[in-house]
């Protein structure tokens, strides 16, 4: 016999859930009491939102091991919500375990009672209110299976606090028992690919004049990086990515043109827009990627591969939709294309040259000297030069995120973690903590904004307390930069609510938490600072950015990613309202 709290922790140990980010409270103190008896590492975050982001990023790095967030009932649980929604939107595996008020008072507005299962139903892959304490190991194993298999996502377990001291017979079921008796409606493995559709897709691609491969985050989850590059090399076709797909392919591959979308690279937008056949892999066709669905679809055929059947045709109706594992399907398509072409092509398709010619013109304009101080694109070039290939970069949300997407080159798959779907400010810093716990041997840098960093910066204390070495590069322009930019470009220059007056001195703030801080004033000083992070040091870099340097290029919201819609200078936005 053992207590439920021990059973939960033992079950976590058995399924490999050994790292937890959380905050205790009255509804989970019975759980915390037992932690010293188990091989479970618990990190005290300074706000539950940070705990959820850390757990999310941990899962993004580990892929098959979700991070875990602990929170108490009521406000503890509701503080997790933004982090859970972030993980859900980016299909990241995580498990949230919340304490709940005792069953004896449940539903009666007890102190710190919130129906967190009800609250999180639309933003979790699944959630459970534990009703039978003897089933705790079943819940833990089911949560892990659901979180990491098929399309990954967050799972929440809500456990009434009067259960912690209930004694149960510990029994850990097998995966088969879980799938048969506990979650029989769940299919962990994707269906085998429809070979007829694979053949159709291969024929379309082989016969296309300007095929383009659009890589989404699903390529990372599926581990399909090499298969995508192999197919691109057979076709000699360009690869462009979504924001989430940026982490899935190396930017230094000659066929990779970078990410497309609202702030996409001109060459990527050009190629994607002018493609006659698009092979979209593991992407939900976000409006931020293509701009306008109807306009984008004109004159092109779409092949859409996704593990989630409900994504096929959701935003864009494809000519061929294939449900299944991206890695297997892309491999099969590659084999068929190779047969049709009787070998790989030797020369790059003309669309690549055209895209690069357009980009050359665009970049000449975009990289002109403008504004005061150190330029974002030059700073990010230094970051890339100084960090090793396997270093992990996280980002917050805002202007800095778009600068990083444009100018920071991912050289190794899985090393770029950003909040793409929900666009959660405050994500970057706790995500960096989660990433570092998941991969302690790698340097981790959070590229953040002043507004974004402030939202979760209380977690600076975590670095010092647990000796977690993470760097933060704060783009400090004293404003909510993208808000200011949108107001300037599309809302009659009426700046309201974007001015971050009375910002703290980030260097002193870091030092007050026991973390070193610097404010570089030259590119050389910036390089030295980044080098310290590359060498594994915790360091906060307060990078002063001219707020008048807008993030360009930009496609106005609602407009398709056509070259004529790409704004290279603020003057080109004149007269546009959104």
């Amino acid at each position, binding site marked *: 016999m053992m207590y439920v709290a021990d059973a939960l922790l033992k079950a976590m140990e058995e399924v490999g859930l050994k790292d937890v980010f959380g905050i205790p409270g009255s509804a989970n103190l019975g759980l915390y009491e037992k932690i010293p008896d188990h091989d479970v590492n618990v990190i005290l975050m300074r706000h539950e939102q940070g705990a959820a982001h850390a757990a999310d990023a941990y899962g993004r790095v580990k892929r098959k091991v979700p991070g875990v967030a602990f929170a108490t009932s009521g406000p503890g649980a509701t503080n997790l919500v933004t982090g859970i929604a972030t993980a859900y939107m980016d299909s990241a595996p995580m498990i949230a375990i919340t304490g709940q008020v005792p069953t004896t008072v449940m539903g009666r507005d007890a102190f710190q009672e919130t129906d967190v299962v009800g609250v999180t*139903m639309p933003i979790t892959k699944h*959630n459970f*209110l534990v009703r039978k304490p003897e*089933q705790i190991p079943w819940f833990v194993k089911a949560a892990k299976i*659901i979180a990491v298999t098929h399309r990954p996502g967050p799972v929440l377990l809500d456990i009434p606090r009067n259960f912690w001291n209930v004694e149960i017979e510990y029994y850990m079921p097998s995966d088969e028992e879980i799938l048969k008796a506990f979650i029989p409606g769940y299919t962990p493995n994707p269906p085998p690919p429809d070979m007829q559709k694979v053949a159709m897709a291969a024929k379309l691609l082989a016969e296309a004049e300007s095929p383009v491969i659009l890589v989404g985050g699903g390529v990372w989850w599926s581990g399909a990086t090499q298969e995508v590059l192999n197919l691109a090399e057979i076709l000699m076709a360009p690869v462009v990515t979504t924001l989430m797909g940026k982490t899935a392919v190396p930017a230094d591959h000659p066929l990779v043109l970078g990410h497309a979308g609202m702030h996409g690279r001109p060459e990527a937008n050009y190629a994607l827009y002018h493609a006659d056949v698009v092979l979209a892999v593991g992407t939900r066709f976000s409006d931020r990627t293509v701009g306008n669905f109807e306009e984008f679809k004109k004159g092109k055929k779409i092949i859409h591969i996704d593990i989630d059947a409900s994504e096929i045709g959701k935003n864009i*109706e494809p000519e061929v939709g294939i449900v299944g594992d991206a890695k297997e399907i892309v491999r099969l398509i590659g084999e068929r294309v190779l047969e049709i072409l009787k070998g790989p092509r030797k020369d790059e398709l003309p669309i690549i040259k055209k895209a690069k010619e357009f980009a050359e013109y665009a970049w000449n304009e975009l990289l002109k000297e403008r504004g005061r101080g150190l330029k974002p694109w030059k700073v990010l070039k230094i970051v890339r030069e100084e960090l090793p290939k396997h270093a992990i970069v996280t980002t917050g949300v805002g202007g800095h995120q778009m600068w990083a997407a444009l100018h920071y080159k991912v050289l190794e798959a899985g090393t770029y973690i950003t909040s793409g779907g929900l666009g959660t400010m405050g994500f970057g810093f706790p995500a960096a903590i989660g990433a570092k716990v998941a991969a302690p041997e790698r340097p981790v840098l959070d590229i953040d904004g002043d507004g974004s960093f402030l939202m979760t910066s209380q977690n600076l204390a975590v670095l010092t307390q647990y000796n977690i070495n993470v760097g933060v590069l704060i783009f400090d322009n004293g404003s909510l930069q993208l808000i200011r930019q949108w107001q300037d470009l599309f809302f009659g220059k009426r700046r309201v609510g974007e001015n971050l007056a009375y910002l703290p001195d980030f260097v002193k703030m870091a030092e007050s938490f026991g973390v070193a801080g610097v404010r570089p004033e030259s590119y050389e000083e910036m390089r030295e600072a980044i080098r310290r992070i590359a060498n594994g040091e915790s360091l906060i870099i307060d990078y002063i950015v001219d707020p008048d340097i807008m993030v360009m290029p930009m496609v106005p919201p609602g407009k398709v990613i056509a070259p004529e819609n790409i704004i290279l200078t603020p003057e080109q936005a004149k007269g546009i309202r959104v």
Partner: protein
Amino acid sequence: MNVKLYQIKVSIYAAVDGGLDGLVRSMHVIRKAPVIFHEMAVVDAGVTKEVSLTVSGEERDVRWLVKKIEKLVDVLEVSVNEIPEEVSRIKVVV
């Protein structure tokens, strides 16, 4: 607009939590779908709750809704059938 009436049948596994959570989860999906919800009946069938829904909408949207419901962890089975308007007391309004 080719709006028609459809009956969606959903079988929800109820052995772990009684099936109410699965039902509410399904409702969360349906309420955001581009269909009009008309009526619903739920029957207790022991280890499952059998749900019958009537919605109207375009076939493409209804089929997408079915796929969204199908992927819920507690849903065992989903089926959809068009209801001929002449046999329904619900009139489709476009």
